[in-house]
């Protein structure tokens, strides 16, 4: 069993890499690549040169202009617990900044600078040092002893000569390769043009915290997931047990009355529900059950009432005689329609599965033996057969775990619930590379773990299965 587990765990690494690579390169090879839909995300065409410069900024900032395999490599380096450090981590290191600031203070020219400017110079020097691969002291020396224009020109020359030969091409895109224009730029601006790209420091790989990176909207992907996950979990933690609670007994009863009206009726009903599109059901539920023109029993969307923050926790009658439903009931009330939408399609599979496996077991030898020795039919069903029939359901449940995390795109969108499904789909539309890859990583990792867990549980639950 242990060998098997270890082998499976090791196999997960290439599988995971494969999944991530497929997702990444499909996105990268789509027309426009990752940066393509930047303008679209803004709602309309943006007028003017600005739009293009912004696009170029993002291309450089996130490296969309690099070959896809380089982008993939950088992303893997980001999420891997063992990898190379990035230039930005080094230059944002406060100790180094303080050191550089002290270095700045040592120059006579620095006397004229205020603290803020001094810090900016130190910052620029550190940036330059890391992007050019020069010792910070040299850069400082140049920046502070030479007039700004000469320093800027030198800076550009160094860039051209640096080991990264594509720099001049990138600078051309930003029209700062024209020396005349470049000289007129402030030193800070030049530094800004340069700081756009983070450099991988190719030294000995170190242990580091894995990171999912920043989304295009400028927030850490982990924060976005931390906000979306509780909503999705809440929906699923409520709806999955309810599905089991309805589907399993129905399946049992249907099996025990095989061919009867209950069997046929529940089968037809569940299959009909299963084939009814969720999108349509959601719209109908809102249109009829949350609409003042018909029945306004439920709210149209969201997780809480606008004034939920001011409500007491439990249903209470306030002094003055008005009744308020309270925060708890309000939340439950908001969850009814989405949970119904999540549930109704799930009955069919589970109840049919239960029914099938109960029927299987009812015709087994042990069930016949039990009947032969005079055990009543209901006892055969409830005490002998049921336990054995539920085995496959356990494994089905484990397989469902990844779906619980991934969330339902349609339900979350229709009912305006900011969960994982909505996060993933919005990211896909905006081609937000970091968010797509982050959610893919989590979902595929969970799927792989769940598959392993299922196989192990199978062995635990059924002694006939063995992996040794």
């Amino acid at each position, binding site marked *: 069993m242990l060998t098997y587990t270890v082998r499976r765990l090791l196999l997960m690494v290439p599988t995971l890499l494969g999944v991530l690579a497929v997702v990444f390169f499909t996105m990268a090879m789509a027309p426009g690549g990752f940066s393509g839909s930047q303008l679209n995300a803004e709602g309309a065409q943006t*007028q003017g040169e600005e739009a293009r410069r912004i696009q170029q900024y993002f291309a450089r900032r996130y490296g969309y202009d690099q070959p896809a395999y380089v982008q993939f490599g950088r992303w893997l380096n980001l999420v891997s617990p063992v990898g190379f450090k990035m230039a930005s981590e080094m230059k944002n290191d406060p100790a180094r900044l303080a050191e550089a600031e002290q270095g700045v203070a040592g120059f006579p020219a620095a006397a004229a600078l205020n603290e803020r400017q001094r810090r900016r110079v130190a910052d620029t020097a550190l940036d330059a040092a890391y992007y050019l691969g020069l010792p910070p002291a040299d850069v400082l020396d140049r920046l502070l002893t030479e007039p700004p224009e000469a320093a800027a020109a030198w800076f550009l020359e160094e860039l051209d000569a640096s080991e990264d030969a594509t720099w001049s091409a990138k600078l051309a895109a930003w029209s700062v390769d024209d020396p005349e224009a470049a000289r007129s730029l402030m030193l800070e601006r030049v530094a800004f043009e340069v700081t756009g790209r983070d450099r991988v420091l190719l030294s000995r790989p170190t242990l580091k915290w894995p990171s999912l990176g920043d989304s295009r909207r400028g927030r850490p992907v982990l924060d976005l997931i931390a906000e979306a996950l509780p909503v999705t979990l809440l929906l699923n933690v409520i709806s999955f047990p309810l599905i089991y609670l309805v589907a399993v007994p129905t399946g049992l009863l249907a099996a025990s009355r095989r061919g009867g009206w209950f069997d046929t009726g529940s089968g037809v009903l569940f299959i009909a529900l299963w084939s009814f599109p969720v999108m349509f059901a959601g719209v109908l539920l809102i249109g009829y059950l949350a609409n003042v023109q018909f029945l306004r029993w439920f709210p149209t969307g969201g997780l809480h009432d606008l004034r939920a923050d001011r409500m007491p926790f439990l249903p209470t009658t306030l002094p003055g005689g008005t009744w308020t439903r309270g925060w708890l009931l309000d939340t439950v009330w908001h969850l009814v329609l989405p949970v119904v939408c999540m549930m109704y399609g799930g009955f069919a599979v589970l109840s049919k599965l239960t029914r099938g496996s109960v029927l299987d077991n009812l015709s087994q030898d042990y069930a016949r033996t039990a009947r032969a020795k005079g055990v009543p039919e209901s006892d055969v069903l409830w005490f002998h057969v049921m336990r054995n029939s539920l085995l496959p359901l356990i494994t089905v449940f484990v397989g469902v775990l990844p779906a619980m995390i991934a969330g339902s795109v349609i339900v979350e969108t229709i009912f305006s619930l900011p969960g994982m499904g909505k996060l993933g789909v919005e990211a896909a539309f905006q081609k937000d590379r970091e968010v797509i890859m982050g959610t893919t990583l989590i979902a595929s990792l969970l799927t792989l773990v769940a598959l392993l867990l299922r196989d192990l549980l199978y062995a635990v639950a059924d002694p006939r299965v063995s992996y040794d």
Partner: protein
Amino acid sequence: MNARFGVKDFFVFALLLAVLVSVWLGVKARDRQWTLLQSIDDRLAENNRTLTQLNRTLSSGVRPVAAATNGTAAATASHPRIDAAHAFPDFAEGDWFIDVFAQTVGKLTPHVSTDVYQNVVASYVVETLADRDPDTLEWAPSLAESWTISDDGLTIRFELNPAARFSDGTPVTAADVVYSYELLMNPKIDAPRIRVYYSKVASVVADGDHAVVFTLSEPYFLGFNICAGLEILPKHYYEQFSESEFNETPGLLMGSGPYRLDGDPASWTPGTGKIELVRNDNFWGPAPALDRVVFREISDGTARLAAFRNQEIDRFGVEAAQYLTLKDDEQLLDQSNLYEYESLTGGYRYIGWNQVRDGEPSIFADVRVRRALTMLADRQEMAERLEAGLATVASGPFHPLGDQADPSIEPWPYDPDAANALLKEAGWEDRDGNGVIEDADGREMKFKLVYPASSNTYQQMVFYLKDAYARAGIVMDPDPLEWTIMLQRIDSRDFDAITLGWGGTIESDPMQIFHSDSIEGGGDNYVSYRSDEADRLITEARVTVDEQARMALWQKLHRVLHDDQPYTFLFNRKAVVFVDQRFSNVQVTKTGLNRAEEWFVPGDLQRYRD
């Protein structure tokens, strides 16, 4: 089978689960109490601070009454539109306005947010130096009470209103203006979108506490626009955050506007489905009537309509497809008012005729062909049938409500006979009798029209045009493209004709779209329109600081573009909005509906209370 899972075990498990759930709910309840306490605590601390300040002012011998009166007097001058609402006989303070967004707003922090709706929220909270009056489009004082522009237009000096206060009561000073600019230009701040607009500003210098001087590096007609439009942020508040904190904290929104974020901006988190603004009690102008402005996020269109019917939200924007059914909807009209308006910021739709294909002049290089193609399309009928009447035929790139447009220019009429005559004059006629017109070399007039594949309205329009052109013997093939592919084709100039829309601003800069310099190097003149006259007018107007002289030049440009028809200008579109009936003083201005800070709800109609 000795460890049988029996009924007893089931109950034990159920009990355990129930205990766990109750514990969790208990923790949750505690947590809510704590949050509530925290916010009360914050509010108390704020009140204390105000009290201390007041005490100090009193003990230092300043006459606060006089100061306040002065302040109010100055403020009244600076927010006349809010003050005008106070003059209504049934004016009353109170009630909320609940607006709706179709998308989640992930970030409110100014400068670095990329969310489309962020500036809607920010416009209630942050103020700029000057604002355009939405009715007259003249610049009106905001944080600056006056300004002087040097004759060459390069130096602009703003005098700040000494009464101006941020929402924590701190005065707005020149240092805040300089700080706001420096923050924006700081390369560590993720604000490339806004930063590019300020590349023409050479320096921003404070002159004393209440004057700021902006210097531009070159004369630019939008120079004042850019300087006056800088969002002024409180230095003392934002300085406490490092650059990376500023970049990553989602809710750092604070300013001097009539509303402020409810609670501590630093602890605001997105994804709660709503954004709540409360009235800024320290506001230096006349107090707005509404207690709160709330933005809800409802992503689904059906749910949005249902929510509006249920009076859960107070504003509902109608799409052209819904318009015909909803405009007579009794239930909606009973509870709300319908506003149909044209707005300067609405933009226009067009068909662009690519004049150069593969380095050769295309069939559209002849101005007679372009004009004929314009006159073959019955744009009036298209506006009525395809856009439900919610569009007016455009004559050029400038919106007719603005001063850039020449009001004497009529759009080209629908006139197939004149169009056919023009085509014949240009050498296109049906020479072999197959129903398709050819030129002298026997080349048939045949082209593909690119349009965004995801859009139904574009598709209807394109098929309508296909019929119209077929009647004149022109073969047009629809070419629907996915957005990203379309952008690539635009970049490589690889299309015959394209139909799209441009967004609008109060005064737009045609340089990128119609100047011949923008043909190469990724500019937006992707139809390769080249006209010396247009180039001259654009170049001259862009450096003309005097507004009247400039408008005259723009109007001349309008005439040139009308004659040359580089685009077939299709429509300016109207917006349709339902607003709940209880709001008074809702007005249609040139830039859309007036802002909710000018609205009020008469006492007996008020629905929400704090």
